[in-house]
């Protein structure tokens, strides 16, 4: 790689985020689309070696390796320059693509001899990106998209006995997640840190909107539990109502996970059915 003009993270990040890019002839990019596609493929294995020490660190270095290989003189240099990248990193797996793109952009700037972050600066930016991207990705994917699609599937089963919801979950989530993974990688590489700054502004309202829709579908599912399609007995409706009230009031309040709650309810009901068979 060329000798980098390394600068500290604090000196570059605020300026890059806050100010518009200076109008100048664009420098030729060193990473071809094929390399970015190779990085995209490797992002699918981001969590293969997930562990408590480095979390996604090894996966991050693996995803970045096609870019580093392209910018380095040989494999040995590429391998050694990836050691710092294999350290601690953790974020939402879809949004990790943005961080990989941003770091690839910084490494390319260094290879071109432009102003760029040094290794310590990149590590600090990676940590900051991990937290901020998780703060965007976790609510969007785990708390909005996933419940929305899963509740749609569950409603389809409750109301229509349709298994097609399984396809809805897989197709719907992947259209969204693969799309964002691809866009995040390419835009993170093309626009660097300035891309991250506008992500929260853009995705925040979308997350809120999707959660509201998920809440409406949750209400739809609750209505099928209280008044089952095709009719149900009054006892079933009362038991369903008791379950809904229990879940609404106590889930998360006690220090029990969903598995413990589920097993507890099943065992209590089983004991009840065994000891009071006349019910």
């Amino acid at each position: 790689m060329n000798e980098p003009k390394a600068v500290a993270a604090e000196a570059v990040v605020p300026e890059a985020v806050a100010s518009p890019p200076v109008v100048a002839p664009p420098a030729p990019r060193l990473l071809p689309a094929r390399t970015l596609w190779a990085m995209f493929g490797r992002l699918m294995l981001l969590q293969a070696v997930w562990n408590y020490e480095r979390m996604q660190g090894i996966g991050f270095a693996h995803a970045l390796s096609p870019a580093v290989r392209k910018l380095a003189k040989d494999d040995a240099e590429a391998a050694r320059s990836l050691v710092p990248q294999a350290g601690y990193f953790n974020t939402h797996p879809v949004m990790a693509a943005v961080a990989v793109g941003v770091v690839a952009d910084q490494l390319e700037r260094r290879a071109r001899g432009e102003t760029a972050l040094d290794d310590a600066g990149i590590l600090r930016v990676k940590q900051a990106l991990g937290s901020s991207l998780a703060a965007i990705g976790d609510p969007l994917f785990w708390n909005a998209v996933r419940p929305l699609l899963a509740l749609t599937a569950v409603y389809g089963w409750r109301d229509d006995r349709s298994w097609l919801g399984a396809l809805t979950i897989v197709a719907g989530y992947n259209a969204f997640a693969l799309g964002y993974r691809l866009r995040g990688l390419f835009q993170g590489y093309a626009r660097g840190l300035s891309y991250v700054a506008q992500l929260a502004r853009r995705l925040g309202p979308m997350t809120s909107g999707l959660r509201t829709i998920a809440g409406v579908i949750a209400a739809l599912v609750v209505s099928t539990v209280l008044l089952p399609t095709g009719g149900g007995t009054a006892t079933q409706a009362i038991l369903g109502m008791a379950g809904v009230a229990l879940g609404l009031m106590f889930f998360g309040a006690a220090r029990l996970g969903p598995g413990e709650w589920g097993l507890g309810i099943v065992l209590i009901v089983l004991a009840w059915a065994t000891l009071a068979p006349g019910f």
Partner: protein
Amino acid sequence: MTTSASVLLTVVWGGVVAADSAAFLQLLLSQPFVCGTVAGALWGHTALGCELGAILQLFSLGVLPIGGRPPEDFPVGTVVGVAVAAVLTGVDPVASAQGGPLLFGLVAAFVTALVGRSLLVWLRHRNEGLARWTETRLAAGDLGALDRAQWAGAAQTFAFGMGWTALALSVFAFVGEALFRGGGVAFGRAWQIGSPILWGFGIGSVARGLTRGNRARIVFWTALVGFLALRLWQPT
């Protein structure tokens, strides 16, 4: 499909969903409704798979795979629970007609998910050794070590999923058959009582998570009142 083919495919499917839930692809095949439906289809009981998968889906929505929190292993739990319920269907016709195998399938699923959580922690600690080895090899200039480590991690998770599915399926099928041959009517009665409570608790817990904030709460309760009114007044 023969029983042995169903068992074999179920074990392989357990490995696939274990890998999908974290290590490889993350296509959400590991969501209980998806993996339960497929597991049910492998045994010729798609409807049973959907029913258990849907209930477990609601419970699993309370699990957020965030940070270092070890999540319950709902993917493998669902595959095992559905397969066990399918095995028990027909062992005791009365209990089966009442849904007894479904209740026992849920017991199997929840226990497998809870025990699986400790196994996931163990697996993640094992990965620490693999990560340290990779870092050492990278420092020595071996770029290929990254590829080898990543594929080894994914293969390890797949093998773990298959092994855990096979073990849990054997244990619960054995215990379940013994219980149902001795009369599984209590399970059938328990399903009649427990099914609405479980559905209610599952969706109640999801609704609790989705109704944080006044606006979300107002939208939810307004929608619920509207949907209940529509269901009450819709022509039968």
